């Protein structure tokens, strides 16, 4: 077992990256501890005291908005015996009482009271909930990191911010989400994360049914059809259409352009399909008239939970919101015409990898040499079908794995 998990010399990735419980545990302690993890969207909070349940890696988490307008990411795990302190998916509460022994916490995660406190020298301040080192927001997206060593969220997103701005920055009113779709994926979480950030190629095979029905409009050799990847392991697919078809959504984009809420260059790219993964497990998918946020929650080496939402401008007209809600539901819900074939193909490959010898390695060398000319867009770019961005994602993953645990909670 001396072969590296990710080998730059022959551009291969070990199947253990997707199957080995020890690797899964290690990436929880490293990748999920040291990265900025997407936890929720600003629009899921109507006011102070609101909370939602989510996960940070495998850790069950509460994301809470306190009375000072600050977000706190606290484990839904009592410091006493590990009881679940909050039972609801979302709601409003300023106190969480563990049903096991009634230890009571505020929405910052501090222990505020313990019934029958008769233990001399018991220091409540010591027994706050396990919590994130920092919570930060970028354009309504709320992230947290558990490591004090992690760079700021802005620096972490880096050049990817330009692409996030495309999807999230066209209205000063911000965006809102509707959801939550939850489904089980029977493979490792990195398989879908990789696909969403770096695999336009799969469309031809997995979604052949949609092509056959005439629902594919792509121009792969176009300058605006490319893969991009940036520092910290983020990656993106952009695919230009053969021609932009007139639609209600195209008219909406033209209005945003006329009002100078988007630039000419942004308008140009927003006729394309744009799919991205923010390292490690956040993806966004945009087709004209469809936009969705998706989080690949790791549950076990071979099991992932997908939580996803429709995303649109808060001040978009109702017919645009309805269009996006409908399209996201039709294409990308667990019953969606695109999603259901992805889920099937992922489950079959997930099962395959589990059943192969641990020495089995996967190929990431396709299109490795073919660096395409630079485009007027941020990040490094390559032509579609290149494995280079996907390999960069795994190289970054291996690098963070090698840094070891970056846990901030010193207990």
């Amino acid at each position, binding site marked *: 077992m001396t072969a590296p998990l990710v080998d730059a010399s022959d551009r291969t990735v070990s199947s253990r990256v997707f199957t080995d419980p020890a690797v899964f545990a290690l990436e929880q302690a490293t990748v999920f501890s040291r990265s900025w993890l997407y936890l929720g969207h600003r629009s899921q909070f109507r006011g102070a005291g609101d909370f939602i349940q989510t996960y940070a890696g495998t850790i069950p988490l509460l994301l809470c908005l306190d009375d000072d307008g600050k977000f706190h990411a606290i484990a839904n795990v009592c410091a006493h015996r590990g009881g679940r302190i909050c039972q609801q998916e979302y*709601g409003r509460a300023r106190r969480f009482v563990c049903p096991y022994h009634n230890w009571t916490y505020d929405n910052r995660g501090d222990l505020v009271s313990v019934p029958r406190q008769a233990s001399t020298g018991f220091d409540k301040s010591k027994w706050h909930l396990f919590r994130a080192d920092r919570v930060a927001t970028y354009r309504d997206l709320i992230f947290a990191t558990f490591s004090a060593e992690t760079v700021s969220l802005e620096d972490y997103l880096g050049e990817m911010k330009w692409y996030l701005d495309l999807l999230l920055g066209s209205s000063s009113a911000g965006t809102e989400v509707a959801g939550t*779709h939850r489904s089980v994926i029977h493979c490792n979480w990195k398989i879908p994360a990789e696909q969403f950030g770096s695999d336009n190629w799969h469309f031809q095979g997995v979604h052949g049914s949609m092509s056959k029905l005439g629902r594919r409009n792509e121009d792969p050799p176009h300058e605006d059809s490319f893969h991009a990847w940036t520092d910290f392991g983020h990656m993106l697919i952009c695919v230009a259409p053969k021609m932009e078809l007139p639609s209600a959504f195209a008219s909406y984009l033209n209005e945003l352009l006329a009002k100078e809420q988007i630039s000419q260059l942004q308008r140009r790219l927003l006729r394309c399909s744009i799919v991205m993964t923010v390292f490690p497990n956040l993806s966004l998918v945009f087709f004209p008239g469809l936009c969705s946020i998706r989080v690949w929650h790791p549950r076990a080496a071979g099991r992932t939970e997908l939580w996803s939402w429709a995303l649109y401008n808060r001040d978009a007209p109702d017919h645009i919101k309805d269009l996006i809600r409908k399209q996201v539901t039709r294409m990308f819900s*667990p019953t969606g015409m695109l999603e259901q*074939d992805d889920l099937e193909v992922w489950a079959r490959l997930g099962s395959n990898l589990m059943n192969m010898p641990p020495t089995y390695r996967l190929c990431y060398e396709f299109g490795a040499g073919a660096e395409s000319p630079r485009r007027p867009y941020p990040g490094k770019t390559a032509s579609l079908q290149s494995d280079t961005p996907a390999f960069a994602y795994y190289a970054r993953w291996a690098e963070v794995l090698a840094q070891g645990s970056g846990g901030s909670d010193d207990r």
Partner: protein
Amino acid sequence: MTGEVEQLLYREAHLLDSGRFREWLELLAPDLRYWAPVRAEVPREQEKEDEASRLPLFDETKASLALRIGRLDTGLAWVENPPTRTRRFVTNIVVEEAANGLVLVRSNLMLFRSRSFADETILVGCREDKWSRSGDWLLKERKILIDHCTVENMSLLL
């Protein structure tokens, strides 16, 4: 009437279990709404209150269902290639006549789905139907309350 509705639902289940989707389409009214809300882990009243603002699990028309069936016919829809083996159990049927020739039908559904060599799931839910009986029976609306908060991959037809 109850006996007639029972037979209708059993025949419908048989068409779906046999992959006779085109025949099944003939049971659907042109203005059909066929939808399923997503479930939420909150108190019952709140789940009901927020139902419309949440994104549904699916929300189909007769035309979009026809498109889905056309997709299966391409032979490239991997979710049903090879076809899954399904068995629908429809029970707890309650029938109530309403105005305009509509019949409200509530039923429970248990759907067993088997794919590949040993990959098996069970899906459980409750369906609230509106059937029209001016002439042939036609399904006008079906709301399916699926009893799963996190769902397995589902082919579609419930």
